[in-house]
Structure formats: C-alpha cells, structure tokens
C-alpha cells in the first residue's frame, strides 16, 4: 500500500471514530507497535540510503499528521461529550431555594441601640440596675417617702414581706439606677439607663412590664437649658427629622425640681402618627433638675453639684417612630408581628450609617 493510500485510509478512520474508545483503536491500529504505520518502518532497512532518506521523511510526516488528527479528533469528541452532558444537565431555576430562617431583632432592642448610639455620641454611658429593688432605691431615695401620694399612684408590684418587715418591689421606673449610679460614681456623671420596668397595670395602653430609659447628668453647671437642648437634639436624631417642635411644660415629679414634661409635635392621619409635622402634641417624657433631696440620699452635696434627669418610654418611642399600634403586642411573641416589625440582623443602627 502506498503511503498516500495509508494516509487517506488512516485519516478516514480517525474521522470515522465515533467515540474515544474507537479513536484509541484507530491509534493502536496505525501507530501501535504492530500498527500499519509502524509496520512501514520495517521496510526501511532494505532501502538504499537515498530511498531510505526520502521514505523515512515521508513516513515521519505521515506519523505526525495522524498523531495530530487523532489529537484534534479527541478534543472534538470530548467537546461533543461535554456538550451532550451539559444539554442533559438543566434545572428549572424557578424552583425554590433551600429554606433558611429569616431572623429578626425585636423593635424594642433595635430602638435600645438607636438610643445608645445617640446618647453615646454625647458621652452618656449605659448604666444598669436590678429589676427587683428595695424601697430605698425605688422610692425613699427618690424623695418619695412611704406616705407620699405619688407613691400610691405607682401601681407597684410587691414581693412578700420578709421576717424583718421589709419587702422588695419590682422597680416601677428606671430612676433607681440614678441612685445606684450617684452612690458609686463621682461627678461628672453622664449616663442613660435603659431597661425593663414594671407596674401592676394592664389595659389597652398599659402592660405590666414595659421599657424605659433614664437619663442623668450631674456636674457643676448643667441646667434646664442643657436639658431642653439634649432632648431636642435627641428627638431630631431619633425621629430622623431636620426639625421638630417640642412643648416644654412645667410639671411635678418628686425626684426633680424644677420638673418638666415634654410633648412632641405630630400629626395623625388614618390612625398613623407622624412626628415633626401637624398640630397635635404627644407627651413623650418627664424630666427636670435632680431634686436636692435625691442628691443628698445618694451621698452628693446639692450645694456643690447639680444636674438633670429624664425618663422616657422606649416602647412608646418605638411605637411612634415605627408606627406600631398596640403596646401589648410587643410582649406577645406573635411570629407574624415579630417578622413584620422586627429588624434584619445586620441592620445595625449607627450614626454614620443611619439609625433606621
């Protein structure tokens, strides 16, 4: 067989190989030890040097051609096989993904962080105190002796009397933290004290447990003007409005003197409240200059230091800011509510990134 014929036939076989196995058989049949091309080598010995030179070169050329053809065919077969596989491997991408829990942060705690961000920027530390309090911290030291009428209005939860006649209470406000802070820390003091508080009251707008935040500043110069400024700046930052009108009204709390209640401007539309517009007023907090008796009870000298305190409902401002209608639902753990009013885990309030 001439080399031309061999080449034609071998390349035809390569082209005809239907898969990699057939291609390998063609390769062995042509280039294997006993392959058709290898067999041609045996004839070289009987040739003249010139003949041998020409034939050898032609044979090598043929070998290279076939080798290359096999490689090309091999790649094309692999591509074909892959394309066939990929054509089989389709999915319906509209099918649902694997379930992952969608966690949330409770609005009270989100607002806790918002409040801490704002006051933290002004250098207020976060103080805490026990929920189970004694009369001294919850009442006496706050200028509310046992016979004080305001003490009756606190709807206090009591624990059972102890053998010594004393009885503990669930703190009715966060104000005992004022006392604990002043007793353990020397002025200047700047703290807020957010936390749970308790009153034996339960109706449409009251729950036996609720969340308050206390604020306390004690130094030598802080006065009512500073108090007003802080509350105004807080409200603008918290409610994320450029301006908000506030109403400062004289009031009375046993633990402050002078005392002040604060209303914030709002509008009501379709049962939704909007802060910073409209002509309605909403009471949001009580405040005042710390009463001299409170400072004395905490071991401070009211002739040397002075300062302000305020108390605000965290649940209440959360309701106002986020349009949550019912306080009782805060503590009901209804998943529908938690998922609707809750916040995503990475939605961390910061002053730089925004609070809400």
């Amino acid at each position, binding site marked *: 067989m001439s080399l031309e014929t061999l080449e034609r036939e071998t390349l035809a076989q390569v082209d005809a190989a239907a898969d990699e196995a057939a291609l390998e058989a063609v390769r062995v049949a042509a280039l294997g030890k006993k392959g058709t091309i290898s067999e041609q080598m045996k004839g070289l010995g009987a040739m003249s040097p010139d003949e041998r030179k020409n034939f050898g070169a032609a044979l090598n050329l043929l070998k290279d051609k076939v080798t290359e053809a096999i490689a090309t065919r091999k790649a094309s077969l692999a591509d074909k096989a892959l394309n066939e596989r990929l054509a089989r491997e389709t999915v319906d991408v509209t099918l*649902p993904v*694997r379930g992952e*829990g*969608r*966690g*949330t*942060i*409770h609005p*009270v*705690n989100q607002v806790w*962080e918002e409040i*801490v961000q704002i006051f*933290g*920027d002004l*250098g207020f530390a*976060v103080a*805490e*105190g026990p929920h*189970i309090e004694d009369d001294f911290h919850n009442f006496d030291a706050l200028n509310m002796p046992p*016979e004080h*009428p305001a003490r*009756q209005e606190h709807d206090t*939860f*009591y*624990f*059972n*009397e102890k053998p010594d006649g004393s*009885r*503990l209470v*669930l703190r009715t406000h966060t104000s005992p933290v004022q006392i604990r802070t002043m007793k353990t820390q020397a002025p200047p003091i700047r703290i807020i004290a957010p936390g749970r508080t*308790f009153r*034996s009251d339960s109706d449409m707008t009251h729950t*036996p447990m609720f969340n308050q935040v206390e604020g306390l500043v004690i130094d030598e110069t802080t*006065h*009512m*003007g*500073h108090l*007003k*400024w802080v509350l105004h700046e807080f409200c603008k930052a918290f409610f994320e409005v450029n301006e908000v009108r506030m109403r400062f*009204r*004289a*009031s*009375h709390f*046993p633990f402050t*003197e*002078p*005392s*002040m209640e604060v209303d914030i401007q709002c509008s009501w539309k379709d049962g939704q409240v909007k802060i910073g517009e409209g002509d309605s007023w909403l009471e949001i907090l009580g405040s005042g*200059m710390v*009463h001299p008796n409170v400072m004395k009870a905490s071991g401070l000298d*009211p002739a040397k230091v002075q300062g302000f305190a305020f108390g605000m409902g965290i649940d209440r401002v959360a309701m106002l800011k986020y349009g949550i209608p019912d306080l009782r639902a805060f*503590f*009901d*753990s*209804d998943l529908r509510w*938690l998922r609707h009013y*809750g916040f995503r*885990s*990475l939605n*961390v309030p910061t002053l730089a990134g925004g609070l809400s």
Partner: protein
Amino acid sequence: MKFTLSWLKDHLDTSATVDEIAAGLLGIGLEVEEISDKTKALAAFTVAHVQKAEKHPNADKLRLCVVETKDGVKQVVCGAPNARTGMKAIIALPGVTIPVTGAVFAPATIRGVESQAMMCSERELMLSDEHDGIIDVQGDWPVGTPAAQALGLDDPMFYVKVTANRPDALGLYGIARDLAAKGLGTLKPLAAPSVKGTFDSPIGVTLDFPKGDEKACPLFVGRYIRGVKNGPSPAWMQQRLKAIGLRPISALVDITNYITFAYARPLHVFDAGKVHGNITARFAREGETITALDNKSYTLAPGMTVIADEKGPEAVGGIIGGIPSCCTDGTVDVFLEAAYFDPVRTAATGRKLGINSDARYRFERGIDPAFTPVGAEIATQMILDLCGGEASHPVIAGKVPDTKRTFTLRKTRVKQLGGLDCPWADQLRILRALGFTVTEAAGGASCIPPSWRPDVNGEADLVEEICRIVGLENIPFAEMTRPHAVARPVLTPLQRRMLTTRRTLAARGFNEAVTYAFLPHSLAEMFGGGQKELQLANAISSELTDMRPSLLPNLLAAAARNLARGHAGFALSEVGHAYAGDQPKDETLRAGGIRQGEAVSRQWQGGVRLVDAFDAKADCLAVLDACGMAASTLQVVNTAPAWFHPGRSGTLQMGPQNKIAHFGEIHPKILAAMDVKGPVAAFEIVLNLIPAPRQKGTARPALVLSDLMSVSRDFAFVVDDKVQAAELVKAARGVDKVTVTEAQVFDVFKLADGKTSLALEVTLQPRDKTFTDEEIDALSARIVAAVTKATGGTLRG
C-alpha cells in the same frame, strides 16, 4: 379638677379667651386634659316655641305640634309625652346633624303627616342619658336663642390635671392665683366675711388625742346655725356643680361641695338635731363602725381620726360623713365643721377603708391650714344667704398649725439652675403674686411660702415657681459640651456581648422576642424556680405570679401560642434577665433560644430533618464564639437541668462550678404540659459567666504559617457505647498537640453488643519537612495506641 369659665371669673378679673387660659394653664403646670364647650357642639340648635300641641290624627301616642322656629312656623310630629302647648323646646331644623346618631335630620312623613322639624331630648344632644321626654327649656328665652345659652351650657368647662404637689390648685381660687401671676388677669381679693354670732353653740368641741399625736387634727372650727331651711340649692349653684360632674343634693350639702371646689376647703355639715351631746375629734376605738354617706358600713380602727358625738363616730375625719347625722330636707339646725386633718394619716385611713372622696383627695395632699377659719366664715355666710337661720359664735378647738419656714433665693440661682434669664424684679413680682412673703436681702431674697404651698421646701422650689410662671418655653437651648471630639465607646463588655448575641441569633434565623419577666407559679416550679421570695404579693393575674427562673418557659409558652396559630418549624430567641433569687447578684443576663419541629423542611431537593440537640449546641457555640470564647476552652458534659431530655442534652462549662450554657431537646413531659408539639431544641446561656477577654490592645498574635502540606488520615475505632467522642478526640490530640492539629469524629455507627464504631479524621501538620511514610505510620500507630489506652477501643479492621 374641673371648673367653668364663669366660675373662674368669680375669682379672676380677665378678658383672656378660653384658648389663652388653656395655654396659660398648660404652661404653668396645670395640664388641661379637656375643655368642653357646648357652644360649638350645639351651635345648630336653637330655642323654639310650641304654639299648639294636639293629638296626632292617626296615632294615639304621637302629638302634632305647631312650632315657631327661627326659620318660621313648622309642623312637628313628636312622640314625647311632655310635649305641650306653650312650652319652649330645642329644635333641630332640616340639614342639622343629630349628635347622638350622627345622622342629618330630614323632614319625614309620620303616619300620614309631615314632620318638618324635630324637638330634641337631652340624649339626642348627648347632654345626658335622659330620653323620657324632650328638653323643657326653662326661662323666657326668645325663639332662635342658641341652645347652649338657653340651657346654661355656654360656659366652657375646663378639666385640669393637678399634680400631687399642688393641693392649692384643687380649689378654683388657687388656679385663679396662678393665672393672675402668669399675667392672665387680676386675682380678685378674697371676699372673707366675718359673720357675727348671736348665741353660744349648744354643741361643744374637744380635741382628744394621745400625747404626741395631736397633729392628727390640730384645729377644729365649728359653727351652730339654727332655723335653716334646707331644700334645693339655687339654679346657678346647681348649674356649676352639674357642669363639673357633681350631682346637686340639697342646699346645705351643695354649699360644702361648692366650697370644696372653689377654695379647696372641704367641710362637713351635721344635722345638729341628730348629734348627741358634744363633739370630739379623736382616734377611733377598736371595733367602732360607721355607716357612711356612700351607704356602706365601715369598721374603724385605732389611729383613724373620727369626729364623734357621745354615741360614737359621726364622720371619718377628712374623708367622709356618716348617714345618721347627715342633713336632710327636714334639717332645721346644723353644725358646721371646718377642721384640719393630717395628710399622712388621712391618706392611710382612706387607703385602709378604701374610700376615695373629694375631701380625702384634698386633705391627703395637704390643704391650707390657715384657711380653716376663713372657710368656716364663707360657709356660714353662704348657709345664712341660701338657707336662712342664725349663727352661733364660732366654736374653736386647737389652733392653726404653724407652717412658717423661710428660704433664701439667690439672685443668680434661676439662671444657674433654670438656665433662665429673668430680671430680678420680675422674680420678686412672681413670688409675691403667688403669695410668698418676700424680703430682699444681700445677694437675694428671703422668702416665706404661703400656708397653701406645702410643696415648697427649698431654693430649687423657688426657682421652679419662677420658671413655670415665666414659661419653660422661654428657657433658651444651651448646648452641652462634648467630652471628646470623637465620641469614645460607652458600652461595657457585657452590653456589647448582649448586642452581639442578639444579632448572632437573628443571623442564625431566630426571631427575637421580648417576653414577660414573670410567669405562672406552676411554670416557675417546672423550670427550677417558684421560690417564695420570687413570688409577687400582688400579682395581677394567675399567669403573672412569679419571677422567671429561666428564659425558656416563656419562650415555650410563646411557641405554644404560635403553634396554635398554625406556625411550625420556627426559632424564637430572647436576650434578657432571669432571676435565681431576689438579690441584685441573682439577676443574670441570659440568652435563650428554642427551635421547634423541622430544622429542614420538606423541599423538592431533599428530605425533612427534625431539630435535635446539635442544633441547640451549634447555636450555643456560635454565640460563645461571637462573644470571643473559643470552643476549645469549654468542657461538654452530658448532664443538664431536669427540663431537658435526660439523654439528649448537655452543658457547656468551664469546670463544674461555672456552667455557662445548657442545650438539648426539651423534655417530652414539659412539652406535653405546655401544649407544645415537639421536638424542641433549646439552649440557655448565662452571658454574665462568659469570662472577660484576656487580650489587651488591638494587635493580633503573629500568624505562623507552614509551607508544608498537612496530611489527613482516617481511623475507625470500635468502642463501648458509653465512650464519648470527646475522649477519642482528646486522646488523639494528646499524642502531639503541635503535630496533630485537628481530630474530628465524622461518622458514628451503632454495632451490635453495645458497641459503636466511631470514625476519626486526624490532621497531621509537618513542621520542618514533609513526613516520610515511616513517620506517618509511626504517628498513626501512636494515635491508635493512645485511643485504645484511653477508651478501650480497638481499630476496626
């Protein structure tokens, strides 16, 4: 405290509008809760004259009336039995909205006769519940007169919330004084009469208190008035009392109520004919009883002040009078009582007896003791004016208690404390207008509060008086200094952990809840609580009796509620406090979480997996890791509190005394008791117990990396069932902590005969050069030997 505008004007000469007065009250600390002005509400209703009222031609119970209205004569069909010829009525003409229904009135044909207007009842105008007939307007009002005017309802009523420190503002005169100081009018001088007595009172008064308790009732002013004629009080007085929600009773009683509200001076009138002998103010005796004016019988106790005659208590001092000696229409002789009762004792007595009265409300806040004789004079004069009769000489026992005290107001103090720039002269003017006796002294003024201001007890109170009258809105904002140009961190490590924990759990799919800090006693006991000292003495419901010993019960209760609503496969968490005792140290901050039902729900790609202890363990480890605690520093032991499944729960601890977290499946019995469908995997971590991070500074330790590839080898050991995976891991790692960098159980297979096969993947990290086969074989042999020695296990063939 309620009052009307015209009543206020008895004491305040003012041209201020209702809105101006309301704004003034609000600013000075007398919060206006409500202003009811019927003038607006009744603007569409006017007086009409019934010219003729006859029987309806087609109905026995209806009347056909011819009525003259401001829009001409109308024919009106009316069902009211009191519709009669000649009466004046309040008419609603077509197009007017009827308050009670909100419907617009339109003419209608009733039983064949057209009714062109409607005569209204009090209920239809929402003035009262009265609906037995139409309003029968009294007085000679011309047709077309506005209804509010003809009905005496054109006097706006103010409802003011008076804070506990202001007993003086529980009388209208005190409110007028504040408004005058504010500049909203001139306070009219008190018309204090001095009624001449013509005879000696046949009833004498004695104060009889144990030594030391005289202040229970230090003063009693009495007056005997004979020959009175009791009956209805005059219309003007009734109208005022009705306007503030009081029911007129009789002239004598109405006078005492009137003076209570006008001057914050509660009084009592006894029917002198029913008083036996003399009157004594004293403490009640054990077992004494009284039938009070509220028709209830009360058993009194020593320590309660009573006004008694020779037969027994006739009134509870400062709180309520008694039925036997009360005034009636037949009363001819009365004995008037104006006394001063100690606020603290009055409050205590009122609380114990459970009586709330206008008198108690004022006495317990501290009325003006110096006003006692004045009040008695005003009342005597009013009785003589309205009921006639003749007054005795006053009977006075005791004397006005001395309330005099002096405080200095420094000129600088209003600015220093209040932040208010108020000229000194204005400060003095305000204090004087409020009744303070002010004497200027060097650098300030010495101020004596008036007897009606028991709340003023220091310089800060003087500052408050000036600030509230000037108006807090006039205090300028004063910027606080920033302690640092760039704010410094303020949170404690525990507070940071609290936030980290919350968000870690939310990222792991938990919906964060905030549940009550209390729970039912039965639940408290189930979760290791229920101690006596953690039970509320005055719980408001049987569901909220005990402080929670753990976060889990309330989360499980929440799970039950959500399951009942059709939810399943959810995760609930809470970060909050639980209570091991009633001392501050017993309150710990915890993180709790529960996962209910399916951890992986059915899905087209694969099968359902139910939650198990390892979900809860993973949650714990994630939280602890987020809080900076390495899992390697924790021991895991297979014991947990009783509310967990005993075989599928564990504890993460740093030594037996420091149990940081529990995790596992909740005990089936607990689930059944709480009506929660299982399984539930739960955990609770005590965040307080996580040790503070040791690292100081921000730099991390240097990272030492090897260029050499690590080698991994698998071993399967057959061990007793009792052997824990951790023992294998510990033994394997113990061979060479530097070289054996990791050992992890990746397969567990139960065999027969109480044996288990545990497969362990061990990672070996060469240090200086790659391992030779011989070195790997040697290390493997040592690992097998160590595991065998530690656990008795054998390498599986």
